[in-house]
């Protein structure tokens, strides 16, 4: 009985910590994105609210919350509101299976810094990722307006195409690790002394493309192509209801998928890797905090890379996007699976 209560308490604390970190960081990533975009275009970005605009996300939130709540005539109010929930919940749920660091002990209890170490974690991630299409489709449909509908149809087409590619892309690391559990994948990478990106570069590229496509980042932001569709499926939303969609799509989803990428390809919390030889840790002086810092650093680097891509590239046409998914990415991923299956026994030892 005691252990059940204790487990519940631990899980509750973990949920609070993860939600707090994810939503807080998600809000602040808007500031990061604006700064990066601005400096790439040689502007300083937000500068007035707080030191270098550090309080800008708070000001934005305040503005969004105090805005009038508009609803399009003849729209479906239930689905309209349901879309917001469907967007936010699956995206944040993904963080339940992301391991932030190795197991550690507090007062004699072993605690894994992962909410639920289920043995089908990756299945869960991509199941929840596919749920995102419902939010977009419902938002477009319930708005009773043509731009959102076109935008949501495009997004649905993209997600369906790239779900296939991303699933086959992660097959490589899964074969090498021999498990679907995210925690175990990282542990196996550390045991095999190998980041899977060294022998899975093709899978990584396919994964990155699919990541950009699923989160609607440039060069796949066709569902909210400003010049054609205003902002795509969020056109009819106002105030904080509007704010949640980009927050979820551009920040929380990108963050969760980058974290999964780090887990799958960059060895999670492990320090710098020399293939088959071992790990070099320049941050050894941090002691037990070092793995957490490494995880954070890798996710940050990947996120900044995605921002960098976003503010560099133009966008593909809708037919080029789906063509690339089916004609290039999918065959590449399949070939990669065959390649991995051939060399996997060498890695397993």
């Amino acid at each position, binding site marked *: 009985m005691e252990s059940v209560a204790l487990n519940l308490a631990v899980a509750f604390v973990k949920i609070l910590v993860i939600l707090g970190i994810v939503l807080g960081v998600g809000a602040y990533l808007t500031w990061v994105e604006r700064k990066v975009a601005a400096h*790439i275009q*040689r502007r300083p970005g937000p500068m007035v609210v707080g030191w270098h605009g550090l309080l800008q996300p708070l000001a934005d939130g305040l503005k969004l919350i105090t805005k009038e709540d508009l609803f399009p005539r003849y729209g479906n109010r239930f689905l309209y509101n349901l879309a917001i929930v469907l967007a936010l919940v699956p995206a944040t749920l993904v963080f339940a299976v992301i391991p932030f660091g190795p197991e550690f002990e507090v007062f004699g209890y072993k605690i894994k810094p992962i909410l639920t170490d289920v043995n089908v974690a990756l299945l869960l991630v991509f199941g929840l990722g596919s749920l995102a299409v419902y939010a977009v489709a419902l938002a477009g449909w319930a708005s009773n307006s043509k731009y959102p509908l076109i935008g949501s149809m495009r997004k649905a087409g993209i997600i369906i195409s790239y779900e296939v590619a991303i699933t086959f892309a992660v097959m490589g690391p899964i074969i090498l690790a021999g498990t679907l559990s995210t925690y175990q994948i990282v542990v196996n990478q550390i045991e095999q002394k190998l980041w899977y990106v060294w022998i899975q570069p093709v899978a990584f590229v396919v994964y990155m493309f699919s990541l950009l496509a699923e989160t609607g980042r440039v060069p796949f932001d066709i569902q909210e192509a400003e010049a054609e569709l205003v902002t795509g499926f969020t056109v009819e939303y106002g105030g904080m209801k509007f704010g949640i969609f980009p927050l979820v799509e551009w920040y929380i989803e990108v963050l969760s998928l980058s974290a999964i990428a780090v887990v799958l390809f960059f060895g999670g919390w492990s320090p710098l890797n020399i293939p088959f030889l071992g790990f070099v840790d320049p941050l050894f002086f941090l002691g037990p905090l070092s793995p957490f810092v490494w995880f954070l650093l890798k996710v940050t680097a990947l996120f900044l890379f995605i921002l*960098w891509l976003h503010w560099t590239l133009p966008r593909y046409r809708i037919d080029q996007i789906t063509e690339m998914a089916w004609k290039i990415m999918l065959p590449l991923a399949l070939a990669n699976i065959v390649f991995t299956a051939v060399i996997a026994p060498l890695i397993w030892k």
Partner: protein
Amino acid sequence: MVKKLKVKPLSWLERILFLDFIKGLSVTIKHAFSKTITTHYPYEKLTPPKRFRGFFAHKVVDGNEPQPAYDEWVERFKIEVIPGRSRCVVCMLCKRACPVPQLFQIEGKKLENGKRVVSVFNMNLMLCTFCGFCVDACPVDCLYQTDIHETASFTRKDAILDLELLEKIGRDWQSRREEEPDRLWSDDVERNKLWYENNLKLKKSEKKGRHEW
């Protein structure tokens, strides 16, 4: 006829290694780590060039009037010349030149000594496009445009410049900038300094005959 260019599509190697992506990314990262080129507007303000087309003003009588035009117009209309007040001779040429003439409201009045002087000169800037035709038309170099470009106001009434305001702006501008030589943008050293990072070099224009174009 279709012009053939010697540009090849990307080779397979270039596509596989994402060379085009890397080219673009290297450009943006270079810009991301160089100095910003913006002016932080409410805290820093640029000085516009002397011949900027901003708010309107009246030059006042100070002995620098264009001669003999000024004396001729004064004689023709029997204008009372008051030092320190507007040079306007109520010739209405500005109104005639204006594409939206109703924005001008100009009246003169007769003094007791039989001479005339401008009494009302209102410009409704809600209608103005700042084209500067009125400035070109002014025969006595009275109406002209200043470097004041912050024209926003809280009421429509504030958008109307009356005679007193025009004279006030004129005195202010004359004290600040009238001595400054007229400059073209291309040889404006001060202005070019802002773009020093670009190493902006304007081409020397070759004189071409009309037939060469």
